[in-house]
Structure formats: C-alpha cells, structure tokens
C-alpha cells in the first residue's frame, strides 16, 4: 500500500530497537548474569553492552555504504546473488524461530501470572493474531507505536521501581571484582546475547531517511537498553540477594510481586508490571514478525510483504509449541541465542564489512 511512504527517522529506529531488545532478555538477565559473575554482574552488563555497541557500529558501517537498500539487495551486492539470497533466507528462518520462541515465552509467563486456566494455545494464537495486525501495518506505524509506547513503558517501570528503593541492600555488590577476570570474560557473551534484536538494523536501515545518522540510533538504543539492564540487575540482586536471584525462574516478575504501595487501592502491583511487559513483548514479537515477513517477501521478490504475514502465522504457531516445557524453552532459547546471535550480530556484519571493503578497494584499483 502506498498509504505509508515507509520513511522513518533514525530516532524512531532507536525506539523500535530499544523496545524490541528489552522484550524478552530482561526477564532472565539478572539470573543469567548472577549465575555467571555473582556480585560483579553489573560489570558483565557493561562489558556486554560495550560489545553490543561495537556490533551495532559495525552494522552501521555496513549499511552506510548502501543507503536505502533492503537486506537482500545489500547482501546480494556484497556476496553475490545466490549467496545473498541464501543468507537472507537463513536470516528469515532465524527471525521466524525467534518470533515463535518469544510468543511461547509470553504464553508461559501469562499463564503463570495472569490467566491460570486459559489454554496456552489460545494465548499464543491471540498474541500472534494481534501482532500480525501490527506487523501488517508497516514500518511507519510500528515506528510511531514504539515512539509512543517506549516512554510509557519506561515511565511506568520507573514508577513501579521507586517503592523498592528503600528495601534494596547495595552491600550485596561489595566488595567489587570478587570474580576472577577469566570467569567474567566467559560471562560476557550472555549479556551480548540479550541484545538480540539489534541485528534488525541490517533489515530496517533501508527505511531510515538519513542513513548516515544510524550511528546515533546505535548509541541511543544501546544506551537505553544498557540503562534498563543495569538498573534491573542492580535492583534484583540488591533486593533478593545472590542465591535467591539465581533460583527464581523469572526474578524480574517476582521482584514486582514484593512491591507494596503504601495505602493504595490496588494490592498486587505485579499486574502493572504485566501490563508494561505485555506491551514490550507485544512490540518485540510484532517487530521481529514484521522483519521475518519483510525478509521473506524480499527473498521471493514480492513487493507486498503483508501477503506473507498471515501465511507465516501457523508456521510460527507450530514452532512455538515444539518445546515441551518452560525449562526446555529456556534451554533452547539460550542455545539459539548463542548460535543465531553470534552469527547475525557478530559474524555476518563483520564479514559483510570486510567483503564490501575488499570490493571497494578492488573497484578503486580498477578505476585507478
């Protein structure tokens, strides 16, 4: 449809990325980080964020060379047509599976905290239908949605966190640097992989009105996400202590169960955290879903991506139901994030940067 002329600002892309990345990663991050580095988890978060920033900048350097190009055009130019198409197809599969896992995680948590008797399948299907509607509407509405929802999510989160502050005990973090450096380094990838979603820069860069400003997008989104992650790790550990944090499945949700607003009308505040969490996971799913169907249409060579949104739905649904239980889901997601994340966040951008540079040098030689 020509109704939306499909142009977004670099700041809007930052909002999309921030709300996408925070979605699932935030729930288990405190647990993972504390398992790996104990009290020095926050250092881990900083280090991982730095890596993510570097990865984002590499992506920026790649997309800057091909302004206004879709991922398929970009990879076909760099790798040649067959390889480029293959890479795009793999990217599409990766995003589809990511959508499925996110929807499944959403279903599990909603069942556990909000709707105890509703079948998981119903939750997954309704969520997919809702996100399909958003995914069909295109990049501009998604950008506007993120722009509106991100401040709402952030402000609500801060408001909810405020009453916890008197109860935190920062001595859990002291003394710092208790963990050996080698162990810290081993833990860094965990944080790096909770930045999954940032690789969407490669897919969405073609829509940005001024591609030379995408580095601002990277700084802004990684900065916002890091702020989120550090504060949530610090608050969770400071409130629960090290051992408890590692033993709870969803520590971030549990922490909000303990919040008591003095003298308020509403007793169980975790419903509010569920609100903002539903918003953020809805956006994550919608954006990744959109990315997947966009890539599929590009690989096939169709101009209309939204024909592919609904046909993808049953596929995503079945993939989402493959894991047997929460534990397996968590395991698989972790593994998946490790391999897929390494490939698309680090290997692909670096490779593309290298090859495009090589090609450029070649051309320079030819003409010179």
């Amino acid at each position: 449809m020509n109704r939306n002329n499909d142009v977004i600002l670099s700041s809007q892309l930052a909002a999309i990325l921030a709300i996408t990345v925070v979605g699932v990663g935030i729930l288990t991050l405190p647990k993972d980080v504390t398992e790996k580095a104990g009290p020095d988890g926050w250092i881990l978060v900083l280090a991982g964020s730095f890596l993510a920033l570097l990865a984002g900048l590499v992506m920026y350097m790649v997309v800057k060379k091909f302004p206004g190009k879709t991922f398929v055009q970009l990879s076909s130019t760099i790798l040649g047509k067959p390889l480029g198409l293959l890479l795009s197809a793999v990217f599409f599969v990766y995003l589809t599976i990511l959508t499925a896992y996110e929807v499944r995680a959403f279903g599990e948590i909603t069942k556990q905290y909000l709707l105890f008797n509703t079948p998981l399948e119903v939750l997954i299907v309704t969520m997919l239908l809702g996100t399909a509607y958003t995914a069909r509407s295109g990049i501009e509405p998604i950008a506007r949605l993120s722009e509106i929802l991100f401040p709402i999510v952030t402000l609500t989160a801060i408001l909810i966190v405020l009453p916890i502050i008197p109860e935190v005990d920062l001595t859990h973090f002291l003394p710092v640097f208790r963990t050996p450096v080698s162990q810290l380094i081993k833990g860094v990838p965990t944080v790096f992989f909770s930045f999954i979603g940032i690789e969407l820069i490669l897919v969405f860069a073609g829509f940005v009105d001024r591609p030379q400003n995408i580095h601002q997008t990277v700084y802004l989104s990684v900065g916002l996400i890091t702020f989120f992650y550090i504060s949530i790790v610090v608050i969770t550990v400071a409130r629960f202590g090290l051992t408890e944090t590692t033993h709870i499945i969803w520590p971030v949700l549990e922490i909000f169960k303990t919040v008591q607003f003095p003298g308020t009308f509403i007793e169980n505040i975790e419903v509010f955290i569920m609100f903002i969490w539903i918003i953020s996971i809805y956006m994550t799913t919608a954006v990744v879903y959109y990315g997947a169907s966009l890539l599929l249409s590009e690989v096939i060579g169709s101009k209309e991506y939204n024909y592919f949104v609904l046909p993808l739905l049953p596929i995503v649904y079945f993939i989402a139901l493959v894991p047997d239980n929460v534990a397996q889901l968590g395991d698989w997601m972790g593994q998946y994030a490790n391999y897929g994340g390494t490939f698309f966040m680090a290997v692909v951008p670096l490779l593309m940067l290298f090859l495009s540079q090589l090609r450029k040098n070649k051309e320079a030689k030819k003409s010179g």
Partner: protein
Amino acid sequence: MDFFKELFSKKKNNPREKIPVKKDYHENLDRIKEILAGTDDVVYREFKVGKQQKMHFATIFIDGLADKDLLNESVLKSLMLLSRMAELDLHSLREKVYEVIRDAALSVSDMREVEEINEAVDNILSGETLLIFDNWEKIVVIATKKWPSRGVTEPSTETVIRGAQEGFTETMRMNTALIRRRIRDPKLCIKQMQIGRRSKTDVAVIYIEEIVNKAVLKMVKERLDYIDIDNIMESGYIEQLIEDEWRSPFPQIQHSQRPDVVAAALYEGRVVILVDNTPFALIAPATITALLQSPEDYYERFFIASAIRLLRYFSLGTALLLPAIYIAITSYHPGMLPTSLALYVAGSRNNVPFPAFIEAFIMEGAIELLREAGIRLPAPIGATIGIVGGLVLGQAAVEAGIVSPLMVIVVALTAMAAYSTPSYSFAIAFRLLRFMLMAAAAFLGLYGVMLALLMILTHLCNLKSFGVPYLSPYAASSTTFNDFKDSFIKVSLRFMQKRPQYLHREDSTRLKKNPIEPAGEEDEDEQK
C-alpha cells in the same frame, strides 16, 4: 483503495449537450420552457418594452427562491416604466439594447450574462432570475437569490460557556460571511464548486493562502473533483467520500458548527469545506488533539485549560476501559483488589445470577438505548425518559438483583466520561470500541484488554488524515518540541509562537511580539 477507484471512476464531463442562446427571443423562451416542462413553480413573466411596445422581454425565475421585491422594484419597474422615456425602439439604439439596459435601466447590484441555455437553467434553479429579450444572443442573469432561511443561532451541538455564541446556518453564503468576519485577510481563499449531478450542491473550499498546508489542499481538491454522485445531502456525504480510510471507526475529518473553531483551524493551516444546506463545516486534516479540544481551551487561562485537557484524556480512557476492567477484574483477577474491597465486590455480586460480562452488557446496552431514545424523543418527554430509564430502571434492576450496585456506578461513570469528549463523532467511535474491549475482557481478562488496546493503538498509528498522521503530534516524524505546547496540555498563549509544525505550512509564526511585561523598575534600569 479499490473502493475509491470504483467510487471516483474518472469524473465524466457533463453529458448534456450545449445549447447556444439564439438571437430569436421566442426560440430561446421555448427551449427553456421545454427543459423546465415539469416544473410548475417556474414563473414566466413576459412583457413589452418601449414606447411602441415592440420589444419582447421575459423574466424567468422560481417562485420562492427569487426575491420578488427586488425584481419588481429594480427590474420590472425600471424596464416597463422608466425605459419608456428612452427611445429604445429607435433604430440607432436597437443594436445596443443590452448596453443601455445594463448601464442605465437595471438598478441591481449583481448581474452577469450567459451564452448557453442549460447554464441559464441551472441559474434559475439556484434562485437567480433570467432576463431574455429580442435580438441578443445572451441571457442576462440577475442575482435575486432569496429563500426562507434560519437566522444565526447558538450552535446546539457545541456549546461553550465563554466564546462566541453564534453558529453556522444552512445557507452557505451566510456561513462564508461568518468566517470572513473573523479573517479579514485578502489571502483568505474561498473556492466554490458544485457537486452532485442532480443536486448541484454548492461546496466551498476555504483556506488561507500563505498558511495552508499545500499537500493537504491539493489532496482535498483532487478528491473533491473525483466525486461523481447524484446528490449531496449533508457534509457527511462529502466526508465519507473523501476520507482516507473507510474501514475505521474514527472520524478522519473534523466537523464543526462554530465559525470560531473553523477560523482557528484556518489560522492553523487546515482546509475547511463548507457545504450548502448544512450548518456543519468540515475541517481537514483532523488530528487527535484537534478532536479532543474545545475552543474554550484557548479562551480560558492556561492552567485551567491544561487541567481540563488532562481530564479529557482521562475521561476518554475511562469511557473506553472502565466496563472492560470491571469485567476482567471480577471474572479473572479478583486478587488484584485489596482484600476488603474484593470481599465487598464478591458480596454485592452474590445474588446476581449472571456472569459479569452479561451483567455489563445488559447495563451498557440499556444506557445506549436510553441515549438513543433521549435524542429521538421530543424535548419535554426526553427528560421523563431520562428519569424513568436512568433512575427507575437502575434502581429496580439493583433491587431485583439482576445487576450489582457497583455495575450501575460503573455504567454511570462511563456514560459521563463519554459525554465529556468535545467531538461527538470521536466519542461514538469509542462507544463502539468499548463493547469490543468488553468482549476481549470477557474472553482473556486483562491480557485481552491490553491486546485489544494495542491493536486499537496500531490502528490509530496507521491512520492518516490527508497524509497527516492521525496521532500528531504524539507520534509523527515531523513533530517538533514546539507542538507539545498545544497537546495534552496547553501552555500560555505567550509561548505559542508557532503554528502546529506537523501541518508544515509556510508562514509559521503565530505570535510575533509578546505582550509588554508589567515592567518592574529594575528591568527598566537594566535596559538603560
């Protein structure tokens, strides 16, 4: 978009043949009589002019649409009586009859000539008077439009405490005059056209040349030109034919009955469409802020205006969500409430035989019925219905144990909140969506409510009104910080130097010089 294509299939040129006016007076008269054969309210007044009564003249007009006094005084009298003194029969003057009549005989302020019979007939039908006479291949059209019309009255649908109390009427000429009175700017353009193959309704596109958003103006004109329909009864026809997305409950064009609202919109760079026979003017593009503001916001002090605006956003949320949240909490999440309140709610619902969803549907349905009945009934009975429906039924329903008292409170609050939205068409969109949210709450609890809300928000983000995002200035790439000065709050007029940026107009300065501060003496010293 196919819908648009079908609807606006290329505008056909008027298929009617052109009939040139002949020199022969009788032939012309016969042609006109032939075309207007079935209309008995046409008056043909034939008479003869000149000393020797040799020249044939005729006036043709529609009884009731033309001003007979004017005709008698300025046309018939001067032609029949006064022109006798001039020797019109004289051979020397014979060729110049028209000049003589135009320059000396007709004492009317507005007249023109047409050369084509069908065009002349159109003029008769819109209330003008035709003057035809011998030896002249043109027909004189004398502006005599005057028909029974309502005077300027207080607009009943958009009342304000402070502000102008006059509203538009059904006569377009009066409406343009009301706008012109507020904008004495030569750049105020009023472009008129006729839409409707049969109704030939007058439609005017109004804008201020240097301020208007050119892209919007172009779109409005294009879409208006595309319309090919037999009649236009009300501006709602035009609204439905030119809006961006017909599959949306939200109005994408604002309408108003108030000249001050329309003038303010023109000053913001919007385009106004006036339609004859209706007091409702259309304003495009519509944005969510425009639909949630009342002209009073700008007339009152900004603290109060801001507070009331926040209240409106809150009431919008209440009108949309309250029954849904009631259903979700009572049926899925009773643990959310403090224990004492939860016990009370459970206790009050103890005797109610229905699930919360059915209970809410009964009551919300009843209040919709009441509202509809209140609008349709004659005013004196309307009040009775209000009492019988609202008080008696509500009380009886609670006593009979069909609904819980809490539900009655929820319904009443929702109804009040829905009424506090200034734009009626915007409010009814939310009325409809409320039922959708109630269904979502019944099936999936608070998660369903969130899901439905996010889908509505997606839809709103997707909407554009003439290329301008509907949610401007909250989420639009062209928004600047300046636009938030007049959004969910309104800052003092002193700080609103710029017109809304999301409309991208040319001359963007609203306020050039701030009012003189009541200068303290220190300030003056500093200046020295």
